[in-house]
């Protein structure tokens, strides 16, 4: 039942993402050629922003899961931690990669080491990578879970810093287009496609996290059966 639900949510999200990208390419209005070096590349925004949004959801999930494991010793919390780290890594990479493609076209360089938003988000993605690869290389146990949960808890500090970075220190990354006061510059059609993208990515990442939690649960069951058989 859970498997079917997770698979359905995942596929719905995937279809939504494909639709968003189709609309972004064919329907979204063009931007002023005077405002951008590379106006066509601006359409990557319909991928980049929803992917970053999904990454924040995943990091939030990771934080809650880490806290549940660390303070309550909840197995559900550990499964949430694993799912949040995997989803955070995937969506973080999507965001970084799409940002670098746009940066190359618009700025002439894919990365700016002086920009706070870019660097804090990059660090978050590295944190997720450390958690995913670290878990795969360590034997599962209370100490391992405690260590990785601590990183999940403290690493979350980077999420609000990343969010406010372009409001406090606007260096190279563009300022907020939504919720940024008068500086917002989205017309109705653009906002609608962006909203569809945000919903699709949210559904997609929710499906992925449900699937990932199920996989961790199956791994734990298999491991406990094998341990019991070894003892016999």
């Amino acid at each position, binding site marked *: 039942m859970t498997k079917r639900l997770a698979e359905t949510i995942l596929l719905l999200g995937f279809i939504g993402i*494909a639709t968003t990208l189709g609309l972004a390419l064919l329907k979204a209005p063009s931007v002023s050629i005077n405002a951008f070096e590379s*106006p*066509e590349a601006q359409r990557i925004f319909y991928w980049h922003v929803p992917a970053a949004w999904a990454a924040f959801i995943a990091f939030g999930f990771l934080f809650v899961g880490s806290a549940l494991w660390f303070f309550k010793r909840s197995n559900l919390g550990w499964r949430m931690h694993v799912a949040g780290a995997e989803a955070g890594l995937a969506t973080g990479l999507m965001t970084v990669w799409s940002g670098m493609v746009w940066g190359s*076209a618009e700025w002439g360089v894919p990365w700016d080491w002086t920009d706070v938003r870019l660097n804090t988000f990059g660090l978050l993605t590295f944190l997720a990578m450390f958690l995913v690869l670290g878990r795969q290389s360590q034997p599962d146990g209370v100490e391992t879970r405690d260590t990785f949960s601590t990183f999940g808890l403290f690493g979350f500090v980077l999420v609000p810093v990343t969010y406010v970075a372009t409001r406090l220190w606007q260096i190279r990354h563009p300022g907020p287009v939504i919720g940024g006061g008068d500086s917002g510059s989205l017309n109705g059609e653009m906002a609608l496609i962006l909203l569809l993208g945000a919903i699709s990515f949210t559904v997609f990442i929710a499906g992925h996290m449900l699937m990932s939690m199920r*996989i961790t649960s*199956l791994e734990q069951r298999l491991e406990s059966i094998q341990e019991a058989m070894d003892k016999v």
Partner: protein
Amino acid sequence: MAEGMTYLAVAYLGMLIAIGLWTWTVFSRSNDLEQRLQAVERSIDTIEPEQE
């Protein structure tokens, strides 16, 4: 202009293929684990009557 849109279409397609592959690996990991679990449970079922 047209060249830029072609690059963008290729980038979009690449990203869709990447997330499609990621989704596929998740599906196959889940199916693989399910099959392994079923095989282990079946082997336990066959061992238990023998022991009785």
